[in-house]
């Protein structure tokens, strides 16, 4: 069964009739064509690769239906850079070589971007605790933690 939803993604309004069972992550990827948001754990809710912002807060887009996002504003990795300028975290991930295969990166950036708004001067322990919901199988996290710490310093 379908329902019409109005969801703003990265400032652009999408009004679509979608099956009620459609997950938000599939709305973003398949309906809107924004494939920067990834699915790594076959929708099991454990990897964090599909993390997006819902009204500015980091959430897993496989843990909600698109209809639940009706009337809300979503930001995806495609909306993180503004006016062609990379977000401080994106620059910092580049500088610190904080990604290898890159599959988890979009989710980590979206989670970390909101985390740094809540906690502007995090300790290493706080950064590591904030990353509990994001799996990275390449880096061992060390460079990711360094990059987030550096970005916090830069935007402070």
């Amino acid at each position, binding site marked *: 069964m379908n329902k019409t939803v109005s969801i703003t993604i990265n400032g652009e309004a999408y009004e679509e009739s979608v*099956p*009620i069972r459609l997950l938000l992550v599939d709305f973003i990827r398949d309906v809107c064509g924004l494939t920067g948001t990834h699915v790594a754990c076959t929708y099991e809710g454990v990897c964090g690769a599909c993390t997006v912002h819902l009204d500015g807060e980091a959430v*897993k887009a496989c*843990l*909600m*239906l698109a209809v*639940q996002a009706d009337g809300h504003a979503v930001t995806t990795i495609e909306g993180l850079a503004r006016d062609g300028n990379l977000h401080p975290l994106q620059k910092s991930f580049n500088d610190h070589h904080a990604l290898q295969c890159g599959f988890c990166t979009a989710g980590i950036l979206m989670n970390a971007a909101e985390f740094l708004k809540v906690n502007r001067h995090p300790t290493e322990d706080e950064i590591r*605790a904030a990353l*509990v*919901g994001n799996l990275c199988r390449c880096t061992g996290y060390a460079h990711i933690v360094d990059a987030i710490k550096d970005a916090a310093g830069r935007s402070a």
Partner: protein
Amino acid sequence: MYPAVIESYVAPKTVQEALGALAAALAAHGDDAHFIAGGQSLMQAIKSRLVTPKCLVDLQHVAELKGVRSDADGLRIGAMTRYREIATAEPLTGAYEALRDAASHVGDRQVRNRGTIGGSLCWNYLAACMPAACIGVGASVELLDSKGKRRTLLAEEFLGGPLETERQPDEILLAVLLPRAAAKTGSAYKKWGLVTDALPVVGVSAWVELGADGRCRRARLAVGGLASGPRRATAGEERMTGLARSDADGIGAAADAAAAATDVQSDMWADQSYRKTLIAALAREVIALAFTRAG
């Protein structure tokens, strides 16, 4: 992992509308109508098709179910209050700090941005933190049915075995109620699991009220992660009464008594004797911390 077909979805704005929508959905679909709160457990169950709802009534817009408020009787946590808010709620320090302990380590920060206390209690998953923490602090729950009948139950009466509660199909959980606490009261919750902040193997919650002499005059201890559902450990509570913060041996004896008297299961994560070891070790920590917080 993908949801089966869902026939209808509604997002009411008030409790009355929510109860009306659920009653209509129950009439149309029988048991296959569900409230959805934050959905951080229910969506997993829907995707694995453990639950196959025909209709979902989404409570996200029901403002009266959100937030922590103080009234004449004590504190009232709306059922749709998220872990994110509970983890830092100022009124929950001291006597009810076990709820902050539990909420601040549920899942991960993405889950805490959506998951709610009411959702957790109504789902009552075996290893969930909020059920044991709520029983541990002596919380009650307030329910309302579609005919306007309101009732209040202790959390320990409301919560049954895993995935079982006393909530009737046409009832909504409105709030978690916390009685006004005496001055020198403290609580703490701690869990142990194989993966950081994931669903734990065992969780233990302690609550102590101290008299003028600094000794415990009322105590509560609760355990989660049990096949029989979250439970009070009254054998431990009895031994906590009369203890002072400095009585480490007495606290240890209370923790050991709680573990010895708790019925535990063996499973792939922990056998019976290891589970009892975990309960005793966690109980020791949370009882000591509850004393410290009681001041």
